[in-house]
């Protein structure tokens, strides 16, 4: 596996190097993080002499540092680094420590990034001499371009026969959930009902024979993605291969007010988190000079699994949490 991973990482780097992206390296330990209510983080202490221990957090994504580099340098950058997410249940595609590829392209949007992601996977396919069809789960997946591109509105229409415009109304969304026998709580927010409907009724029916870009998510899901003209959608996509989320992309939000609104909302919802952390308010200053830019985060372990037809994440890691728990070390 070491050799396979080394070859794979090398191929990824050569793709970005050939396109003149600069590889960067940023801290994994940070005194503050971007507030993201759905993510639990790992906390540790820095024992600084003469003071009380100072809390530090393992990054769930290198975004906060990479955005600072872009503000100052205004050039395309990429990074392959470890990221950490606490409390998530282990599964065939989840390990709390994992490898992320993140790349940012300035003066580009999410549609440009779709093309780059497709080029990257096509390049890896050729460079690593992969089979024309890879089998993953019960599927034979063709990694040949073009990949599928389906908007959220289109998939809702196709699977449930409803448009997202209709679901923008809270009561309509609630009725749709009830119609499909989903459990609905009185305190469910619009975003929570939307995800219940999406995860129960749509995601299991996504086409799996080719990589799929699912794009234009509802803007009411709080993210740092730019709002699309018209206001209902955000310039966002997720790349699914074999039914698994491999990557996500935003045209990055640059509007100060909207970023502040996102921060405040997440800080509020973060109060229910198990691990609280200091907030990276300083990033807001950098983002006020941020150029138009598109960012992609891609799970390297998952992509490695798919291209080499490996069904469990532990098989692509030196020692996964699954292994450490099985052998009693954790």
């Amino acid at each position, binding site marked *: 596996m070491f050799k396979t991973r080394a070859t794979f990482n090398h191929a990824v780097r050569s793709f970005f190097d050939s396109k003149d992206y600069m590889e960067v390296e940023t801290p994994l330990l940070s005194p503050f993080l971007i507030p*993201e209510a*759905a993510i639990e983080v790992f906390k540790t202490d820095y024992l600084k002499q003469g003071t009380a221990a100072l809390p530090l957090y393992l990054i769930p994504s290198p975004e906060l540092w990479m955005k600072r580099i872009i503000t100052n340098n205004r050039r395309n950058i990429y990074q392959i680094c470890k990221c950490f997410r606490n409390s998530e249940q282990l*599964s065939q595609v989840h390990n709390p420590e994992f490898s992320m590829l993140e790349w940012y392209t300035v003066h580009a949007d999410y549609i440009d990034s779709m093309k780059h992601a497709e080029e990257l996977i096509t390049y890896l396919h050729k460079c690593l001499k992969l089979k024309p069809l890879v089998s993953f789960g019960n599927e034979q997946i063709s990694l040949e371009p073009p990949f599928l591109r389906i908007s959220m509105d289109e998939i809702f229409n196709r699977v449930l026969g409803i448009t997202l415009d209709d679901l923008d109304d809270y009561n309509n969304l609630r009725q749709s959930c009830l119609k499909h026998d989903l459990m609905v*709580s009185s305190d469910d927010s619009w*975003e929570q009902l939307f*995800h*219940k409907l999406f995860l*129960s009724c749509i995601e299991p029916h996504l086409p799996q024979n080719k990589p799929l870009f699912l794009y234009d998510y509802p803007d009411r899901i709080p993210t740092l993605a730019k709002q699309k003209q018209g206001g209902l959608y955000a310039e966002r996509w997720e790349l699914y291969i074999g039914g698994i989320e491999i990557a996500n992309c935003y045209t990055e939000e640059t509007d100060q007010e909207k970023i502040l609104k996102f921060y405040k909302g997440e800080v509020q919802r973060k109060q229910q988190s198990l691990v609280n952390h200091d907030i990276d308010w300083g990033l807001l200053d950098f983002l006020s000079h941020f150029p138009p830019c598109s960012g992609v985060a891609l799970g390297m372990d998952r992509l490695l699994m798919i291209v080499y037809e490996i069904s469990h994440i532990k098989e692509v890691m030196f020692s996964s949490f699954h292994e450490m728990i099985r052998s009693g070390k954790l």
Partner: protein
Amino acid sequence: MIKAGSIAKGMFILIKGDPYQVAEREFVNPGKGSAFVRLKLKNLKTGQVLKQVNKSQETLEDIEVNNKSFQFLYSDDSGYHFMDTETYEQIVVPKEGAEDRQYFLKEGEEYQLVLWENTPIEISLPYKMVFEVTEAEHAIKGDTVSGGSKPVTTETGLQVKVPLFIKKGDKILINTETKEYLERVNQ
């Protein structure tokens, strides 16, 4: 009450008055917005499978159950007949929703029944059980088409694929969850 995020495989919960057992639990975190848990639940009255998505913070009604030893006597159209090993009282567990338990029940053996308000809702099985092979074909030498395995039948009627060296009368260890052959047991 229990938070959906704390639910584990094998737990028992109550939905609209029916007891369910958690068959699968998958943590789903879209990374944006909220965290969710995708549950696959088995209705212990009807055997029907229910899939649902809950917010991690959402609460569900868990039920208090207890395990008790019972001896399996026999099965007939009315269900599986068991006897309480302490009180010698007999009870019947309906077959509905527990049809595949017939392949694991051996007359005279003790099993743990899961009771909820004194009603049995589940026959729990050990992870591995030993069975005797009662029907087995002779292996054909040089047969490579079958991939080095052949089907046999146990005394309970369970059909499993086993390696070619297994003969009629052998004792074999079976994984009760996957119904797969694990190894031959030395007598």
